[in-house]
C-alpha cells in the first residue's frame, strides 16, 4: 500500500464507537477519505451509517475513537469542522414553516455567506425551485424536499459534503443531475461522503465502504471490492426463471441467487463447484453465461457471510 499524504486526508478517523443504551450501533469504524474523493458508504438498514456520519460532523460524541476531519480534531474542534461541512440529514430537517427561500437564507446567514442574495438566487435556480421559492418547505413533495435539503448544504460551498441517502425518493432525472453535480464538485476539490442503498449509485463512487452491524466489512474501489470478494457469477436467462431460482438456491457451491429483471445471477465462491452444481440444469431453453459479479451480488454475499458469523 502506498502511504497517503496526511494533509490530503479530509476524513481520517479511527476506531469510532457509539452505543445507545448499551447496544453498540457503531463498533470501531476507521475511515480515510482523500480530498476530491466520492466515497460511498453502504450497508443494510440499521448498520450504523447515519450514526457514523453524525460522529464525523460532531453531532454525536463518540464513546471511543479519535480522528481529524478537514484537519481539525473531531473531539475538540467540532465548531471549525461544522463551518466547512455540508451535512444533509437522512430525514428532512429544514424548517417546514419557513418558505424555501427563507430556509436557504437562514442557512446562508448562519454560515456567514457573502453576497447572500445572489448566492441564494443561484442556488434556487440550480435546483429548479426558483418558481416555488415562496412555498412553505413543508408543502413541497418529498422529492423536492430532498433537493432543497441538498441545496441547503451546498449554499456555503463547503469543502466536505456528508450526504445521508441524498437520493432516496428522488426521480431518475433529478438523480442524474445530482450525480453530475457531485462529479463536478469533486473535480473542483470538494470531498463527498455519501450513504446510499442504490448499487448503480455505488458505481459513481471512486471508493466504497461496506458496513454491517457497526463494523466495516470491506473497503476499496468498486473493482477492488468485486475482485477481493473472490466471487464468480453465472447469469441465467430464459423462460420460467422463478421456479428455477428456487431449485438453484439450495445447491452446493451456490452462495446466492438473485433475480435482476428477466435474468438470474447465480454466485458462488468456488468456480469449479459452482460449474458442477449448475451442470444438470443446463438445457436448450436457458442461456448460461459466465460473468463478473455485480456490486449487488458481492454485497449480498458479504451480508450473508457476516450473518453466518464467518467474518473475514
Amino acid at each position: 500500500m502506498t502511504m497517503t499524504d496526511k494533509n490530503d486526508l479530509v476524513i481520517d478517523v479511527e476506531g469510532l464507537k457509539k452505543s445507545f443504551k448499551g447496544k453498540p450501533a457503531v463498533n470501531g469504524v476507521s475511515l480515510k477519505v482523500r480530498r476530491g474523493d466520492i466515497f460511498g458508504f453502504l450497508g443494510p438498514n440499521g448498520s450504523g451509517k447515519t450514526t457514523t456520519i453524525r460522529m464525523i460532523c460532531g453531532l454525536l460524541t463518540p464513546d471511543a475513537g479519535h480522528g481529524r476531519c478537514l484537519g481539525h480534531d473531531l473531539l475538540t474542534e467540532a465548531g471549525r469542522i461544522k463551518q466547512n461541512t455540508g451535512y444533509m440529514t437522512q430525514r428532512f430537517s429544514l424548517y417546514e414553516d419557513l418558505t424555501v427561500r427563507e430556509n436557504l437564507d437562514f442557512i446562508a446567514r448562519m454560515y456567514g455567506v457573502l453576497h447572500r442574495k445572489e448566492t441564494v438566487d443561484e442556488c434556487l435556480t440550480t435546483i429548479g425551485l426558483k418558481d416555488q421559492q415562496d412555498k412553505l418547505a413543508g408543502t413541497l413533495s418529498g422529492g423536492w424536499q430532498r433537493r432543497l435539503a441538498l441545496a441547503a448544504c451546498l449554499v456555503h460551498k463547503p469543502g466536505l459534503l456528508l450526504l445521508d441517502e441524498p437520493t432516496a425518493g428522488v426521480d431518475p432525472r433529478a438523480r442524474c443531475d445530482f450525480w453530475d453535480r457531485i462529479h463536478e464538485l469533486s473535480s473542483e476539490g470538494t470531498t463527498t461522503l455519501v450513504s446510499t442503498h442504490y448499487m448503480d449509485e455505488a458505481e459513481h463512487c471512486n471508493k466504497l465502504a461496506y458496513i454491517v452491524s457497526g463494523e466495516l466489512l470491506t473497503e476499496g474501489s468498486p473493482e477492488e471490492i468485486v475482485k477481493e470478494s473472490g466471487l464468480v457469477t453465472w447469469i441465467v436467462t430464459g423462460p420460467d426463471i422463478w421456479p428455477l431460482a428456487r431449485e438453484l438456491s439450495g445447491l452446493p457451491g451456490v452462495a446466492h441467487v438473485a433475480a435482476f429483471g428477466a435474468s438470474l445471477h447465480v454466485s458462488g465462491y468456488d468456480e469449479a463447484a459452482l460449474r458442477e452444481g449448475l451442470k444438470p440444469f443446463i438445457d436448450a431453453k436457458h442461456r448460461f453465461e459466465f460473468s463478473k459479479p455485480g456490486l449487488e451480488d458481492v454485497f449480498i454475499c458479504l451480508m450473508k457471510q457476516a450473518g453466518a458469523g464467518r467474518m473475514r
Partner: protein
Amino acid sequence: MTSYFSISRFLTIIVKEFIQMRRDRLTFAMMIGIPVMQLVLFGYAINFDPKDLPVAVIRADESIFSRDLIHAMENSGYFRIIQTAANEEEARDLLELGDVQFVLNIPANFARRLLRGEGPSILLEADATDPVATGNAIAAMTTIVQKALNRDLKGTLRHLKQEEAPFGLRVHKKYNPEGVTNHNIVPGLMGIVLTLTMVIITGVAVTRERERGTMETLLSTPARPVEVITGKIIPYIIVGYIQVILILMAARFLFHIPMVGSLLLLMLVSLIFIVANLSMGVTFSTFAKNQMQAMQMAFFFFLPSLMLSGFMFPFRGMPEWAQWIGSALPLTHYLRLVRGILLKGNGLSDVLVHLWPIALFMTLALAAAIKRYRKTLD
C-alpha cells in the same frame, strides 16, 4: 474563525423565530388569549358587586327600630331577607349550607336597652369564604344601621343620637377572616399570566426543534448555544410586553385601578421578570424530551408560583417553609413590585429589594439554560 458570539448568527435566529411565531397563529393567539380570558374571568369577580344577598334574621326584638333596620337593609339592595324569626340553630344551619350569606341577630330587648342608652349590639354573621362577595355588603352595613336608627331617634330621643354609638354593630366574618382586597388582583394577574405563558412558550420553542428534527440542522451549523438561546428569548419578550400592556390597559380603563407609580419603572421591572421566566422555559426544554413534557414542567413551576407567591393566600399567613419557597420564586417578588409601583407609587430605590432576587433568578436560569443546552444529539 468561529467567534464566541456572532451578532449576525444571533440576529438570524431572532428573525427565524419571528417568522415562525408569525406563522404559528394558534400559539400566538393563545399568548394573547390567555390574558384576555383571565381578565374576563377575574375581572368579572372584581366588577361583581353582589346584590340581593340572602339573609336570615333572628329577630328577638319586635320594636320599630328593628323593623326599620330590616327595611333599610332591604332598600340598600345588598340584602334580601329570606327568613325571619328563625331560631339561632336554624339560622346557623342555613349559613353553613350556604343557603344564606348572612345571619342578622337582633337581640331581645334591643329597643329597651337602646332607649336606656346601654348601647346594645346587633350581630351580623357573614359567610366570608368568598370575601369579594360579602365585602361590599359588609361595608355598606354600618351606614345602613346608622341611618336607619338615627331616623328613629328624633324628638325626645335626640339625646341618644348625640352620643357616638348608641348601639354597636358587631360583624363576624366566618371562614376567611383575612379577606383579599380587589385592587390586588389585576396587578397580580399580570404576574400570573406572564409566569404561565412565558415559561411554556420557550419550553415549547426549543423542544419543538428537537421533535421536528430541525435540531439536527441547527446543530450542524456553527451556531453557539448562547446565540441560539438568546436568539430564541428575544422575540418572546415582545409577546410578554403585549400581555403586560393588555392587562395594564384593562386595569386602567375597565377596572379603574389607581396607578400612582411610574409606568416606565414597571416596564423595566417587567422586562427582567419576563426574561427570568423565558430562561426558565429554556432550561426546562433542555430536560424535556418533547413538547408535552415541557408543558408539564411549566405547570409544575406555575403551581407553586400561584400558591406560594401571595396571590392566592396572604403571604404572611403561610407556614415558614412555604414562605421560604415563595421567596425563591420570581413571581412573589414581582407581585410586590407591581403592587408597590402601581398602588403605592414606589420608586426605583424602593423596588431594588425585590428586584435583585428576580435578577438573580434570571441570571441563574439563563446560565443553567446555556450550560445544559446540548451541542450534540446525544
